[in-house]
């Protein structure tokens, strides 16, 4: 129902929220990005394209641009190939041990980003465990074999398939199985059914995942920075390098701008495709998917072999990480894993040594602050936007989606540039270099996802509930507190948990804005990969990683995996499981 601007303005709750919202949007979402544009096009108050000229003449910058697009294109192919394969063998074909396979592949969901990159480097890198083993067997080998584009693509492919596991699995489950049965009845083979019925049905989902993969490749930071070596640097590591020196900050801003524009164009395409109509059969009596047998014996054997080989690829790094977290650094580097070399000392150190625990504490603090703040704030905003639908709220919603459209690098850079000096909009407070800035940036980055999910949750609440409360005498605030909030609370909690998860191991944002004395885990883990040899700092990294995996796995299980204990009691409550439906929501 449309509610007029006039009526909206009569609600005092709206006026308060709107005032806060307007300032917040202006100060954090609009102004920093305008300042960034200013840095590029008007560094001295005069319009100029000099930044682009400087960029064009920098070979490193141009190489990084080329590499980024190359990486994005290659990943779009590799991630889709591997991702579609792992979903099919776990959910579509009858493969022996599918459940084990799924759990193995799902390890990519519980560790990613810098944690995963660091893990691979420590295992396959120049001084890595596997490299040491291999060098023992082949002394002439190139110890830096796991560097450059191939290594980056390899790591990011494994990481990228998590989207397939979450979203393609979901789409596949919604394919009307009767269409498969009908096709088989008409004589279509297993492969033909897959290629002409199943995959075309989930094509929109595959497009969406592809675009996410492409964007992930374009804005990649940790993988190319750690594993790319000198030969394969991409845009974001370049932005970071340029941003660290005042004389090249305009170059950083220009590169960020290129990244931002590319992202916006791709998201516009994605949006168009999303509107391209429903592919899912809206069948009244959907039949559950039954797993398909591969009729050809040799093909069946080949698929089984490939599936288990991939399982090994997925499982080896996390298993080694867990193993190493219980050993001393010397045992790893010498490759002598005896029974006596296992110890709990690393864990004891993390939990007893304040210095070792500090980064963990910092990450927990930032994660908790940002995830709770953003959910609390967006609860009001989402309700407002869902209830009052008119041009003003549509505009507010658009502005709040800015962090979704722009890469986090650009947002972080914009904030640094805008608030490194006193500015009236911030009450003359300088934010750059403070402890607060990272927290603020996290809140900003989590707004779009939180808003979308909460709005969906509120939309799921029937209007009649509110009317019933109103007619029974409850005012708007009482209704919100006693009726609406309890209904959306499970979803809000799930969103907060997911936000917390993704912030815990953040590196890409922290590396731009973190305070030197308050460095979160991501940065500490990244720094550990810079060491030439395995030392006790590496062992600590393993412990951090295992703890992070535990926390993430617990959250994922609570949000997605639980056999819906809460839902049985309250089937009308908005389901947090709905968070698995939309691929676009996982950005940032």
């Amino acid at each position: 129902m449309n509610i007029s601007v006039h009526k909206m303005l009569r609600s005092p709750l709206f006026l308060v929220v709107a005032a806060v919202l307007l300032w917040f949007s202006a100060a954090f979402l609009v102004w920093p990005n305008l300042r960034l544009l200013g840095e590029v096009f008007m560094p001295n108050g005069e319009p100029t394209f000099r930044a682009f000229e400087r960029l064009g003449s920098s070979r490193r910058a141009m190489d990084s641009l080329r590499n980024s697009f190359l990486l994005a294109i290659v990943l779009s192919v590799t991630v889709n190939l591997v991702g579609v394969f792992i979903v099919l063998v776990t959910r579509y074909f009858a493969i022996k041990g599918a459940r084990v396979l799924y759990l193995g592949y799902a390890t990519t969901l519980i560790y990613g980003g810098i944690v995963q990159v660091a893990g691979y480097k420590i295992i396959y890198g120049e001084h890595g465990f596997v490299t040491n083993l291999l060098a023992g067997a082949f002394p002439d080998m190139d110890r830096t074999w796991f560097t450059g584009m191939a290594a980056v693509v390899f790591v990011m492919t494994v990481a990228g398939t998590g989207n397939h596991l979450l979203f393609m699995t979901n789409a596949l489950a919604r394919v009307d199985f009767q269409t498969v049965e009908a096709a088989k009845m008409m004589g279509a083979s297993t492969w033909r059914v897959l290629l002409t019925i199943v995959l075309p049905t989930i094509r929109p989902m595959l497009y969406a995942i592809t675009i996410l993969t492409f964007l992930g490749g374009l804005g990649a930071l940790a993988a190319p920075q750690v594993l790319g070596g000198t030969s394969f640097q991409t845009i974001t590591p370049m932005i970071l390098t340029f941003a660290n020196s005042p004389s090249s900050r305009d170059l950083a801003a220009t590169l960020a701008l290129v990244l931002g524009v590319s992202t916006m164009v791709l998201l516009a395409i994605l949006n168009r495709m999303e509107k391209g109509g429903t592919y899912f059969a809206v069948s009244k009596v959907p039949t559950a998917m039954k797993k398909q047998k591969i009729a050809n014996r040799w093909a069946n054997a080949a698929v089984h072999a490939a599936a288990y080989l991939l399982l090994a690829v997925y499982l080896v790094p996390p298993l080694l990480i867990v193993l190493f977290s219980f050993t001393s650094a010397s045992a790893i580097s010498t490759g002598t894993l005896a029974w006596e070399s296992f110890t709990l000392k690393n864990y004891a150190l993390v939990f007893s040594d304040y210095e070792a625990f500090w980064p963990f504490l910092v990450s927990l603090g930032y994660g908790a602050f940002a995830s709770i703040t953003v959910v609390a704030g967006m609860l009001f905003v989402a309700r407002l936007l869902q209830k009052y639908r008119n041009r003003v709220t549509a505009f507010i919603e658009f502005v709040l989606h800015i962090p979704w459209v722009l890469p986090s690098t650009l947002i972080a850079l914009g904030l640094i540039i805008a608030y490194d000096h006193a500015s009236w909009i911030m009450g003359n407070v300088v934010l750059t270099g403070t402890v607060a800035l990272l927290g603020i940036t996290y809140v900003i980055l989590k707004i779009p996802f939180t808003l979308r999910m909460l709005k969906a949750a509120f939309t799921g609440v029937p209007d009649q509930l509110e009317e019933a409360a109103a007619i029974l005498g409850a005012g708007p605030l009482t209704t919100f507190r006693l009726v609406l909030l309890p209904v959306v609370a499970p979803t809000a909690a799930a969103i907060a948990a997911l936000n917390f998860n993704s912030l815990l191991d953040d590196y890409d944002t922290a590396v731009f804005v973190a305070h030197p004395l308050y460095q979160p885990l991501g940065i500490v883990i990244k720094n550990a990969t810079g060491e030439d040899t395995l030392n006790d700092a590496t062992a600590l990294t393993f412990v951090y990683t295992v703890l992070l995996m535990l926390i993430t796995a617990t959250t994922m299980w609570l949000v997605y995996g639980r056999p819906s204990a809460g839902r049985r009691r309250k089937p009308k409550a908005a389901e947090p499981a709905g968070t698995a439906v939309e691929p676009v929501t996982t950005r940032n």
Partner: protein
Amino acid sequence: MITYENIDVVFDDFHALPDFNLTIGEGEFFTLLGPSGCGKSTALRTLAGFIDPTAGEVYVDGARVTNLPSQRRQIGMVFQNYALFPTMTVRENIGFGLKVSGVSKAETTRRVDEIASAVELDSVQLGKGVTELSGGQQQRVAIARALVLRPKILLLDEPLSNLDAKLRHQLRGQLKELQEQFGITTVYVTHDQDEALTMSTRIAVMNKGRIEQVGTPQEVYMHSATEFVCNFIGDANRLATGTVAALSALPRGVRGTAALNPASASYLRVERVGLHAPGGKADDGGARLTLPGTVRARQYHGVYSSYRVELDVRDGGTVKGIIQETRHRGFAPGDRVDVSIDPADVLQYPGADAQGAAQVPALTQLAPLPSGASQ
């Protein structure tokens, strides 16, 4: 007493209620009946205060309530999906209004128990979550929640539409009993003519935002004021021109009303059609017209059978009639029967030939009186 005075409701470019006027008396069970989209829910929600009318006023007991917020109108409402709060127990749901208005805990418990026993909810059910209850029980919770605040008016928005047929019939009776027990003025919205006829003191039949007729169930059924009402309520034959022409030759009933107009749309309720074996029972009262015909189809309904009879008279068309399944052995397709019609039962709507006109061939308008009509 409730009065709608020149109410206008406009949504964007859709005029949902144009110039709506209606008065509902104290203690009435008043039904707004009509097809979906006719504006009946809009009228109800305007009274509830969920819709601000573009123009006009609403009065309750003579006081203007047009701009009063819902919670101050002393109205209780049962929603179509009940709108029970899913995160609260049955007791918390019923007591919600009392809690919000600051009634003491003891008093709340007392009043919830009292109303719960009135709607036959026991103490075990009061402790349950609302989603653990069956549809019928949920409905009783919704009614209790609406009545516990002792409102002046009870609004019911299609409260039976989500239940299966048998439960619907059962609850219909219980709902009516409760209303009589509390003596509360009730406004009921439904598209189900059966519900409307069995429960209401008065009915307003609505179409496209306008009231077609207001009256007691008998009035709207027996003397449908418009062709729409006649078609919407009950089952009626639209008589073909040949039959109307034959009827118009007869004086119209004992009351001596004017003769039928052959040009007007004419209807006859199916239960008013007499069906007899040829030469069988004579017409009672002598005013009836008897027309011979052939049975074309029979539909068995258990309690009765309905027959489609093609009339011999030129342009006579077919009529549908029913015979109760008592000891009558019934007719089979192809049987010859006599159809008798009392002209006083015919409902006529001059000039309103928009509906159902397509069924009647145009060229038969001036058909001469058939010779066999007097048999």
